């Protein structure tokens, strides 16, 4: 059944392959990620203002014809109709705004929706905003919300939040491929090292592998340092149709392909715990639509909500064979100076994970890196990049491919 479905996707993709670039990012803005004073409205305002300021030749708010808002509505405040909040806080009242909620993958799916809107030809300039405010609720309420995007009727009733579900996944990964504790610790240490160079990161301090392994266990074999933090933050992108991008800047960053996928919500219904079919499908679609090979990619932004997720990402995206993500990580090749840098901004692990903002923030980092504006954490020879955004424990996933010039 899936094969037939992929075939039909391939056909659609082939028909569209005449377009080399599908959209262009011409501006991007980012707030600090972390425990912030600002509320969600101020976060949105700050990120969008920064995005407009970043457009080299300027962009007018009147040119925005559509907007997409990625947010979970964590904590329950303004859980409904937050599209209007985006419009009124950013000066685009009147244009259509669509909220996209695919849990932690909301940002990646919002970006994909924006590319689709541009492809329809109706919109010259589209705004994509991701935001989450997570630290203004009590600890008990926060823990209530941290599980709302997982399966409630089986996983939650058994006493699992996402840390627990990823704990099960890590347990299975170890059972299939051997103890990967050192590779998990390396993921955390590497991403903290990158985060230490990112002024927007929630955590800007290094941690050693030994510290990661000695931390208290949250969901064995995952410990405290295997988990991303609970963060506030927002990120905004301005997207134009590729043919008009140079009206805004000489160095647009192009989106050459997007893909997305879904899977069963509860991991108990999936054939494998250690392969995310949603990611595999999303990557397949993205690479087909861009006409790229894996070897074209200079660096990755992947969804490392828990350290084990980065190993799965390397494998499901096709950069390592099953079980080989651990060895690739331990080889040092995914460090900033390696052959395939992964998460140069610190990833969710160190940069933080304001749920709706994360997928948008991955594209922000790629925007800086491909334009050579990433400062101390600049990756060498960055020409092509991939962003990978996962909702829940692999139930939804979005992949986008970016290039410059």
């Amino acid at each position, binding site marked *: *059944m899936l094969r037939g479905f992929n075939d039909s996707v391939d056909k659609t993709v082939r028909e569209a392959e005449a377009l080399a670039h599908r959209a262009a990012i011409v501006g991007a803005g980012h707030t600090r990620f972390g425990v912030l004073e600002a509320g969600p409205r101020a976060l949105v305002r700050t990120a969008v203002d920064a995005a407009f300021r970043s457009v080299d030749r300027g962009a007018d708010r009147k040119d925005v014809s559509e907007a997409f808002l990625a947010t979970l509505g964590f904590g*329950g405040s303004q859980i409904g109709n937050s599209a209007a909040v985006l419009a009124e806080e950013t000066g685009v009242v009147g244009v259509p705004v669509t909220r996209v909620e695919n849990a932690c993958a909301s940002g990646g799916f919002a970006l994909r929706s924006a590319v689709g809107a541009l492809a329809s030809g109706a919109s010259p300039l589209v705004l994509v905003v991701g935001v989450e405010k997570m630290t203004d609720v009590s600890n*008990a*309420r926060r*823990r*209530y*919300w941290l*599980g*709302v995007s*997982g399966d*409630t*009727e*089986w*996983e*939650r*009733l*058994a*006493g*699992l*939040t996402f*840390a*627990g579900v990823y*704990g*099960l*996944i*890590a*347990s*299975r990964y*170890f*059972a299939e491929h051997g103890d990967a504790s050192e590779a998990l610790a390396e993921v955390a240490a590497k991403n903290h090292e990158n985060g230490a160079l990112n002024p927007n990161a929630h955590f800007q301090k290094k941690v050693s592998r030994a510290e990661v392994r000695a931390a*208290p*266990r*949250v*969901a*064995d*074999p*995952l410990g405290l340092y295997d988990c991303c933090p609970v963060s506030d933050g927002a990120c905004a992108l301005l997207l134009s149709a590729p043919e008009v991008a140079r009206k805004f800047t000489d160095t647009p960053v192009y989106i050459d392909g997007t893909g997305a996928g879904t899977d069963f919500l*509860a*991991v*108990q*219904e999936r*054939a494998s*715990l250690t392969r995310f079919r949603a990611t595999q499908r999303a990557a397949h679609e993205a690479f087909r639509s861009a006409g790229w090979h894996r070897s074209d990619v200079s660096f990755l932004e992947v969804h490392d909500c828990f350290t084990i997720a980065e190993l799965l990402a390397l494998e499901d995206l096709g950069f390592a064979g099953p079980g080989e993500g651990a060895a690739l990580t331990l080889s040092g090749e995914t460090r900033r100076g390696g052959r395939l840098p992964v998460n140069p901004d610190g990833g969710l692990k160190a940069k933080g994970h304001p749920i709706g903002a994360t997928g948008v923030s991955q594209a922000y980092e790629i925007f800086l890196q491909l334009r050579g504006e990433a400062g101390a954490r600049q990756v060498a020879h960055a020409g092509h990049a991939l962003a990978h955004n996962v909702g829940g424990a692999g139930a939804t996933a979005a992949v986008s491919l970016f290039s410059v010039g």
Partner: protein
Amino acid sequence: MRSVVRVAAYLPAGSSGGVRVAASDEDAFTLGATAAERAWVDRVRVSDPVVVHLLGDYPSTADWGFPALLGRGAEVVRHPGDGGELARALRSLEETGEGPALVVAAELPERATNRERPAPSPPGAAAVAYFLETSDQPRPFRLGPASGSPSAVALALRRENSDDGGLRSDTYVGDWDLAPAAGRPVDLELVRRGAERNLSAVSEGAYVPRPRYLENLPSRWRFAADECDACHEVTFPARGVCRRCRRRDALTAILLPRDGGRVVAVTTIGKGGQPTEFDAQVEVSGPYQVALVDLAEGVRVTLQVTDAAAGEVRVGDAVHTLLRRLYPMEGEWRYGRKAVPAPPGTTERRER
């Protein structure tokens, strides 16, 4: 002829040894806690017409989920608590013939309603379930005087069946699995406060509303699944449609094995890693494990592990399952299956 298989979840008033905390209707829900009970439940097929006799006065909503537990066709007969309920139940048992039947009697504390605290249990409160079945070598179906309070009946029944299957007055499981066998010291006050806190709490986020909870009980309590006659895919939890070929007209209701499953993944939830509705349980009985268990080839379920030290269960272990309390929410206890380590030497069950 029917014989009494077992008295389950008998809660003698004022039991000693720190075993009993509060008697309530849900305490009768420990079906499947022993091999005898599991055998009884196992023998009841999904399609069997089961008659459940409820003795005494129950709020209208309290059918206790027995129809869901026993099968889709279970019928509930209520016998009002006017002193003659047991006699009436016996009469209807004679009239209904040889099929499986369940008689449940209890003296209930006033039932907690939504968002209200549960009333304290009155002294002498008891709950008891009688499992009756057809047998080739029947024990006489004797319940002594066909009147009297359920707790008096329970005592009489216990005496008469004391040689039947290890029934003991302290055979009690339920309150977050504080079975005396686990050897843990029990702080009754902590349990009471935890339960009251959860029972009175209003859910703030992810939770299973009562109608959703009830609709899935056959799958959650009995591992009811659909097997597709066309493509042989097993769909669990049952959805009324084959998850592979989407056919609705070729499904056979089956029960997956409840014992001898194999652990394919397991995690130990550390302090603070649990959803908030499990806070009280963790406070009372410490960290717990959650396992993904293969019930049959490729059919898996997520279960909390109980009656085992945290870290005891490992990938590859065989586990049995029991119906246990999960947590109270909005005035009501939620029940589901949990996994326990299988005795050494248990062979995996693979048949469907």
